[in-house]
């Protein structure tokens, strides 16, 4: 009754229906998960019906390709089943697993479909194999190469994050030199034994992956842990510096650089606000309420200065309030630093909001929140 192709989709459909039932009655609160599973059931059910009605696409007995060879054993159904499982597991764990499952499933379906088609293309097995390769190798090789490179790069990045910064740089230089040397060797000695070339590549890749796994086991180096704890890009701690590991020029971030509302310039001991779209310097800035607003403090005066944003006070507990203050770090002349302000209350709520620079008297920019 069931054709070969329809069996698989019937199985997926059945499994999806069971998963849908379990998800709906035992786990699910999310409409997305239910929709995904129902979609799977519907799609695979449709494909089952389609394959049954067309008998796997065979119009009639005469239309069946004239192959006499038995189909080869294939690993793709197994991989497709793993992909399907991952998709289902992802709906109740994390979307990344679902995404990975979809990729695996799609790859397996493409490979399996092309393999099945090519095996029925003619009665010549060698021709059929060549046909499959001609179709899929242009996709398989770049994808596998990208995945392999990704694994190597990711592994090496774990090493550089785990070891001392200078050791990491040295290792990078050495590895680069080794890769270059191997490349040169392969190009000037094209007649090297195939086994030797493969051996060098495998040893190198396995070595890097092993080093990466070791690096992951060791964890990132201490200074990066500290920097993460203290906030790499939004350092808002006033008072003495606690860490020496901060990036003094955090505006490398594209999003921050592209989204600056106002530059606060300290030029020869005078503060001035350069508001985007306004040509003249201002001594007040207006920012909208409850909306994160990026301002950049640029120190163009001799000496180290920080910008301090005094943004009123907030209630901590009943009857107890504390001042809301945000600061940049002390930054040297020629440096700049980002500060993101989000003020939930209007200026009329209390004392004026200001931007000041400790150590400079008479220099203040009023922050108006309508």
């Amino acid at each position, binding site marked *: 009754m069931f054709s070969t192709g329809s069996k698989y989709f019937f199985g997926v459909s059945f499994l999806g229906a069971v998963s849908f039932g379990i998800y709906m009655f035992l786990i699910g609160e999310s409409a997305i998960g239910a929709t995904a599973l129902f979609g799977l059931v519907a799609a695979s059910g449709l494909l089952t019906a389609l394959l049954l009605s067309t008998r796997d696409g065979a119009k009639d007995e005469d239309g069946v390709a004239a192959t006499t060879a038995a189909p080869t054993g294939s690993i793709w159904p197994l991989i497709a089943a793993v992909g399907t499982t991952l998709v289902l597991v992802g709906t109740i764990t994390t979307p990344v697993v679902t995404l990975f499952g979809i990729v695996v499933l799609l790859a397996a379906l493409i490979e399996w479909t092309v393999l099945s088609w090519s095996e029925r293309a003619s009665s010549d097995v060698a021709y059929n194999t060549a046909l499959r390769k001609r179709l899929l190798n242009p996709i398989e090789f770049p994808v596998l190469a990208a995945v392999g490179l990704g694994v190597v790069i990711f592994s090496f990045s774990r090493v550089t994050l785990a070891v001392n910064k200078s050791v990491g740089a040295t290792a990078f230089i050495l590895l680069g030199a080794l890769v270059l040397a191997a490349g040169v060797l392969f190009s000037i000695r094209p007649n090297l034994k195939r086994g030797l070339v493969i051996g060098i590549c495998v040893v190198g890749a396995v070595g890097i992956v092993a080093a990466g796994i070791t690096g992951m086991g060791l964890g990132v180096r201490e200074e990066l842990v500290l920097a993460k704890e203290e906030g790499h890009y939004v350092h808002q701690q006033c008072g003495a510096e606690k860490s020496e590991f901060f990036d003094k020029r955090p505006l490398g971030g594209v999003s921050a650089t592209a989204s600056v*509302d106002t530059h606060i310039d300290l030029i020869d001991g005078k503060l001035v606000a350069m508001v985007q779209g306004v040509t003249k310097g201002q001594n007040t800035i207006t920012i909208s309420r409850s909306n994160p607003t990026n301002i950049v403090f640029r120190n163009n005066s001799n000496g180290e200065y920080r910008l301090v944003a005094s943004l009123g006070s907030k209630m901590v507990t009943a009857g107890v309030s504390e001042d809301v203050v945000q600061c940049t770090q002390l930054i040297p002349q020629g440096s700049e630093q980002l500060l993101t302000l989000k003020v939930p209350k209007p200026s009329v709520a209390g004392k004026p909001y200001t931007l000041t620079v400790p150590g400079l008297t008479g220099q203040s920019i009023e922050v108006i929140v309508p």
Partner: protein
Amino acid sequence: MRHQNTTERTATGINRLAGMHRRVIGVVAGLATTMFLASCATNAPQDTWKPKGPNAQKIDNLQKPVFAIAGIIGVIVTVVVITAVIKFRDKGQPMPRQSHGNPALEITLTIIPALILTIVGVFTVRTVFDLAKTSDTEMIINVTGQQWWWEYDYPVQNEFGITQPIITSGQLVIPAGTKVLLRETSRDVIHSYWIPALNGKRDAVPGRVQLNRIEADKPGIYAGQCTEFCGLSHANMRMEAVALSKADFAKWVANQLKTYTPPAENTLAKEGEAVFMNQCTRCHQVNGMKRADGTPVIAAPDENLVSGAAPNLSHLMSRNTFAGATFDLLNTTCRKDVWGADSESFGAKYLSGVSESCLNQTDLRGWLRNAPGMKPMYSNPALLASTGGKYRGMPNLGLTESDIEKLVAYLLTLK
């Protein structure tokens, strides 16, 4: 006999072809009539072909010739394709001789479109740069979009008499003949600000400030619409730019800077103020409002709304709209009077604000009775788990008819 059958079949085919021609002609005629009738609309405030300011005029100067060129090319291509389809359709004729390539024709057909596109491109790029010019800006207004209304705040600009910041919503008030720079951003999702009569559209993106210059030639009201899909009530996210003469604009500024006057004691409006303080100030600010102990009333939209802001209702009745310009504060008669006014009398009519006799009681009361029933706003309390209990718009406050009566009386005092 066979010959007779062939003749009959030919006649049937010709009849079918004639029938098909009639249907095609009918469809084309229907479409053309629909397009023609659509172009006759008189009440089309967002018509992109009627510029009312220099920026929109620049766009118009570009779009008309480009539209003409594109239209002519479109007609030529369509005619050629249809002719080819009909003339060379399969009639059982032998397969014509196959040929590959005609260098002269191909080069010609490449060069001509390239030239046309180059000419269009030059003028387009020039217009884009013209529209981006902000160096001669005369006035600045910050525009903040959120689901589903626009907030306008005017930074201090002494040359326009704005000695304190002004905040309003729904209607953007500008002086006519003045180059106004809108600094646009958003508090939640991407919106897009577009008043077709004054300029092209510009996205308002969270975390970014986008610049958009507008200028109105004459006093009047110019309608617009958010043009970036932004959620459930995107279609209700409207805006209106109100251009006033410079003298009238100065009067408007002076009114906006007036300090808050609480309603007289023992009046319905005073009772309404108490209801407002109890219910509405959870989100809505009225500048200058104070409690009985003299402390200022500060709204807390950050605790109740996803966007962290609700329209500031100071001087509400100086506007003609509410709820993100979705509804008119003026009733139909008074609205027609303002919208239909000529540019000389418009300012005085607009500045008269909303009196009790002109108030659109139906919509305002309906709004207070059940806001989400009038404008969809995801405000079912049972569905707020993903937003930490915060709303995306005004919920149903469950006000009594008595409360609504008092609130309407109070809101009418916010001139």
